């Protein structure tokens, strides 16, 4: 089985501030990390590999520095990596990103399973996975918490929804976006770290992917970010205190006063 994991390098949001004047992210001095949800996708791939054997290739679209994110996950046991990097990709929205990633999957040819995190912590759209599956015309499942291999061309996956868990039988090739329940991401090992450090990571640009300039980057994007702003701070909040039962009492009273239906 060949598993492709799509990851994104993101600013470490634990340390991110928004500039109050320009409303943009203050990126200075902010470390880049692998999108935490993508580490669950990597872990899910590694667990399938541990159990049944697989080749895992990780791909990311980003500037050359994003190669660091690829080496990070290689140091956890991923076999190979591909960096999709080209000036033409700059300014991509989720559609242009999906177009580029899907082209890379097509070029790889033999991918049986694509794994993504449920969303990226910087954009929070959760769109790239499903869009990619649509472009590749393969089935997909989102918010997956468990994956089992049923037979050579079917997986059994459990999805977490607001209503409860759903268990699906899904044919391969397919795409899954995963949530943290798939398992805690492992740390690197020294052997893999040494291998990752030395690895030659191929970079594929627009020509390698056979894409037209109009379909990628800013020109291939349906959406553009016009303005970013911090929502105004709300000061009408009440913080309840006391024991749990006291808080419940107070909450009930407040909800009643607010005439919430059903209370």
């Amino acid at each position, binding site marked *: 089985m060949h598993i492709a994991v799509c990851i994104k390098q993101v600013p470490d949001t634990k340390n991110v501030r928004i500039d109050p004047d320009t409303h943009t992210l203050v990126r200075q001095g902010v470390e880049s990390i692998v999108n935490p949800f993508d580490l669950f996708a990597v872990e899910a791939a590694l667990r399938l590999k541990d159990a049944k054997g697989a080749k895992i290739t990780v791909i990311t679209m980003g500037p050359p520095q994003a190669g660091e994110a690829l080496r990070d996950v290689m140091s956890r046991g991923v076999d190979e990596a591909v960096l999709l990097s080209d000036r033409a990709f700059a300014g991509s929205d989720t559609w242009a990103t999906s177009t580029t990633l899907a082209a890379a999957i097509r070029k790889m040819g033999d991918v049986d399973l694509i794994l993504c995190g449920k969303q990226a912590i910087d954009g929070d759209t959760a769109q790239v996975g499903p869009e990619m599956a649509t472009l590749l015309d393969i089935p997909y499942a989102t918010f997956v918490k468990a994956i089992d291999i049923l037979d050579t061309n079917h997986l059994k996956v459990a999805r977490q929804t607001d209503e409860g868990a759903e268990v699906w039988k899904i044919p391969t090739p397919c795409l899954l976006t995963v949530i943290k329940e798939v398992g805690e991401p*492992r*740390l690197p*090992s*020294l*052997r893999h770290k*040494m291998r990752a*450090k030395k690895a030659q990571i191929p970079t594929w640009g627009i020509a390698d992917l056979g894409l037209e300039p109009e379909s990628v980057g800013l020109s291939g994007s349906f959406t553009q970010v016009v303005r970013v702003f911090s929502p105004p701070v709300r000061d009408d909040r009440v913080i309840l205190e006391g024991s749990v039962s006291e808080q419940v009492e107070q909450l009930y009273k407040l909800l009643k006063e607010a005439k919430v239906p059903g209370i």
Partner: protein
Amino acid sequence: MDYFLTEEQKMIQELAYQIAKEKIRPVKGELDEGEEFPWEIMKVLAQSDLFGLYIPEEFGGMGGGIFENCLAIEQLARECIGIATSFAASGLGAYPILLHGSTELKQEYLPQIASGERLAAFGLTESGAGSDVSGIQTTAVKDGNHYVLNGTKQWITNGGESEIYSVLAITDRTKGPRGATFFVLEKGDPGFSFGKKEKKLGIRASATRELVFQDCRIHKDRIIGREGTGFIAAMKTFDKSRPGIAALGVGLSQGALDISAEYARKRVQFGKPIISFQAIQHKLADMATKTEASRALVYSTARYMDTEPSDSSKVAAMCKLFAGDVAMQVSTEAVQILGGYGYMQDYPVEKMMRDAKILQIYEGTNEIQRNIIGQEVNKEYGRKKDTFF
């Protein structure tokens, strides 16, 4: 300070510190409080390849030496030397096999220890034999192709948790210093059981137990080296392992310094951060200087020892002595800098101070280290032709 580490050595440091920060920091307090063996962390360390740093590649290790092992131990020790001791003690248990074992013994046990699949331990101390190793009473009597062990080892780190034990027993009392032999014992060998787990002042996440042998019969293939080489093997093992104990001290000192310096910059009294008081600054200056000095000594000793020199006992003892004493001093000062907060369990330095004390006791007390260094100095100067008088 830049110690001109290789790419690979930097990776070891980075990886070990990542484990310390992400995995050890969140659980160390709980494990200490509950006196709970850190199995989860041992699994992470196993998966990270760090258990095999000093073991040759042909036996499943990473092919490094004492220095690489010290680098990893130091980083783990910045967070918790209870956990780091459990890690390091497996190395102590492995060394007799690595140094003196037959190829078969090495092939059998070293790959399991290198992968972290099984932990090792070292059984020497007995109730009547602490500093004076020659006082051991545990016997191994030959019976055809077997040996029968009887006796009790006490305070064995990883006792009950490890599956592989290097145990020293008397094989022929009449032969004195040539009368003891190391054997490999396995958890589950008939006649081999464990005493209760000790309650301790510090390193409470590490397990310390008795090993009890009652007519424990093992095949003679379990001998490490030749019969009668046990005391020499013990001394050689300590030479190899003492820099690792010193590295525990370096890491602990660094951890205590890091917390104290940050605290002193933030804690305001008399309208100023306490770091602006000279008394506090001088404490921090001494702590930083001693920590760096012990690191420099440990690194140079470990590097030197990896060249297999003949005079390793003295330098191994020096770094264990120095880094252990420094860790005790630095962690005590850390508590002082944090004042009442330092004394409280909600802050991490009281544990460091409790933990540091063991570094002056196990693997030979610091008095014994001074004895070794003193004897070596005496011998060295006895050989000198140059004279001042």
